[in-house]
């Protein structure tokens, strides 16, 4: 065996090495989504009268405030490499609890607090089961889906109307600026989105979420608080879903155990359309906002189209979704691997 030279005999050449991809490819999916969203909006304007009114765009925010809220929580979960199927049910449970308590004459702020706490607790339980007992997120949150809706049905199988003063005024309230209107719900959702984006980019919790999603095992070995991050992510998602319930019950002042069926898919779709990888670790909150807007815009286009029969509505949604995703894929496509 020859000895390894411990001292390089020749002066080591200085090489600017391994400088890779000049453009930061991380932003490509989000940018592409943004551009395609613009294109879609343009198509809407070209085809439908009155579509160009900026208020139409703001209405998308107003109409989808709850979905955005839910999708924000979902973004954290998906970034961490998990999935949360329980959000739609937790949202429904939130509306039912709120409606029932309000009917019993509780203070609206206490009610909101209780709803949020319940949502967070459900999320916490799911996160704990997933992390500490090594249960697949899909299953744990599917059980959560059954559980939350089950509790909601237990509380009331009938839809409960909300007549609380605070609720109804918040529902009708519109924040005016420069001739445009936003609902308080939309404002809350937007503020939450900004806060979440900042949290993802500028807090340890946010970065840990990415790390856990990239490779949970490595994150553990790097000494990151994987347990805390995982549990917190699901707690956050539960909290967001419950908040979504509150916002939803502002817009449609009812507590109904059947609301939000399939909303988990909408939320997941919004997140994934926004360029976030379902396998975790890669994506941005801005993408999620765009994803929600895309889904909302599709819905708006259908309303403007106006004459679609029920089944054509579905086919039309699928078609638009397909066109969008296909284009997005083509735009962001790099080499085949």
């Amino acid at each position, binding site marked *: 065996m020859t000895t390894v030279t411990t001292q390089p005999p020749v002066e080591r050449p200085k090489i600017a090495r391994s400088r890779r991809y000049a453009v930061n490819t991380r932003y490509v999916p989000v940018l592409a989504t943004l551009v395609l969203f613009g294109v879609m909006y343009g198509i809407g304007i070209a085809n439908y009268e009155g579509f160009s009114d900026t208020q139409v765009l703001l209405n998308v925010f107003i109409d989808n405030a709850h979905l955005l809220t839910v999708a924000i929580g979902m973004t954290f979960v998906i970034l961490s490499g998990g999935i949360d199927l329980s959000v739609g049910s937790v949202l429904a449970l939130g509306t039912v609890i709120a409606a029932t308590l309000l009917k019993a004459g509780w203070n609206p702020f206490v009610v909101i607090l209780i709803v949020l706490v319940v949502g967070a607790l459900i999320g916490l339980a799911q996160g704990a089961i997933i992390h500490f007992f090594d249960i697949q997120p899909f299953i744990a949150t599917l059980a959560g889906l059954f559980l939350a809706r089950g509790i909601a049905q237990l509380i009331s199988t009938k839809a409960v109307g909300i007549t609380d003063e605070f609720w109804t005024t918040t529902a009708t309230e519109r924040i005016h600026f420069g001739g445009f209107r936003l609902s308080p719900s939309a404002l809350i959702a937007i503020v939450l989105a900004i806060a979440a984006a900042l949290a993802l980019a500028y807090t340890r919790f946010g970065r840990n979420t990415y790390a856990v999603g990239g490779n949970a095992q490595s994150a553990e070995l790097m000494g990151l608080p994987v347990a805390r991050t995982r549990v917190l992510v699901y707690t956050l998602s539960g909290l967001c879903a419950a908040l979504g319930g509150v916002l939803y019950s502002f817009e449609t002042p009812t507590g109904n155990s059947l609301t939000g069926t399939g909303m988990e898919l909408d939320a997941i779709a919004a997140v994934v359309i926004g360029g976030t990888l379902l396998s975790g670790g890669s994506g941005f909150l801005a993408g999620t906002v765009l994803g929600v807007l895309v889904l909302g815009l599709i819905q708006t286009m259908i309303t403007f189209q106006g004459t679609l029969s*029920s089944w054509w509505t579905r086919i039309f949604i699928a078609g638009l979704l397909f066109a969008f995703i296909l284009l997005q894929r083509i735009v962001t496509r790099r080499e085949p691997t």
Partner: protein
Amino acid sequence: GCGGDSGSGSGNDDGKITMGFAQVGAESGWRTANTKSIQESAKAAGIELKFSDAQQKQENQIKAIRSYIAQKVDVIAFSPVIESGWDQVLKEAKDAEIPVILTDRAVDSKDTSLYETFIGSDFVLEGKKAGEWLVEDSKAAKGPVNVIQLEGTTGAAPANDRKSGFADAIKADPKIKVVASQDGDFTRAKGKEVMEALLKAHPEANVLYAHNDDMGLGAIEAIEAAGKKPGVDIKIVTVDAVKDGMTALSEGKINFIVECSPLLGPQLMDLAKQVVDGKKVEKRILTEETTFTQEQAKAALPDRKY
């Protein structure tokens, strides 16, 4: 001009009435028949119909109504997905001076000025009719009358109401007992599956009450597979009176059907014209509905549209 004598159709200068209709969805054959009826009678009545499908989501329905308000239609009609939570958007319609007609399902708003009228069936009454027929029919019966009930989707208004109406009516006869009551989700497949299991768990059952025809039709398959005769060994009462149900009724496989007609298009169009003309209409209009025995079904079947 079917558009009628009213040159005063608000907003539109062509005098034609524009109606925005926000449908619940296309969750059942009943619903699609309802949609068809509305579309066809709108055409026949010369009313321009803007139609949207909410896919069972209240939020979508609210969105659709808002967009009808924005488009300044002459009249808005909709079948609420659920009863509560409509005050806000109805207020908006009222502020825009657009009359609203509810179809099929009611809303629970205290302020009834928010809508002009509600046309539709009374689900509680339907349940009651079913129950009353059973009480009548059981008079002759010696032994206990053991009922299996196939409920509609848990939490849905028709399911809740048809259950409670039925329960009220059968109180009249202590012989009648509901031995099992299960969610059959309004579908044939579920109706069959649930019935298969219940027949084995409750061999003593001799009556089936299904919240709609479809579940009843599924249950018939299960009953036949169990070697019993539907309509004889097990008497069957259902609600809806769709064509398939009526066929089974005329064949003697069902004993009694309470009609819940989806064909309220013509009535709706009439009302719309009156409302747009500013005429006062009844707050609550029941759809013209009846009940069918086996003989009546044989007679009615040839004219059955759906």
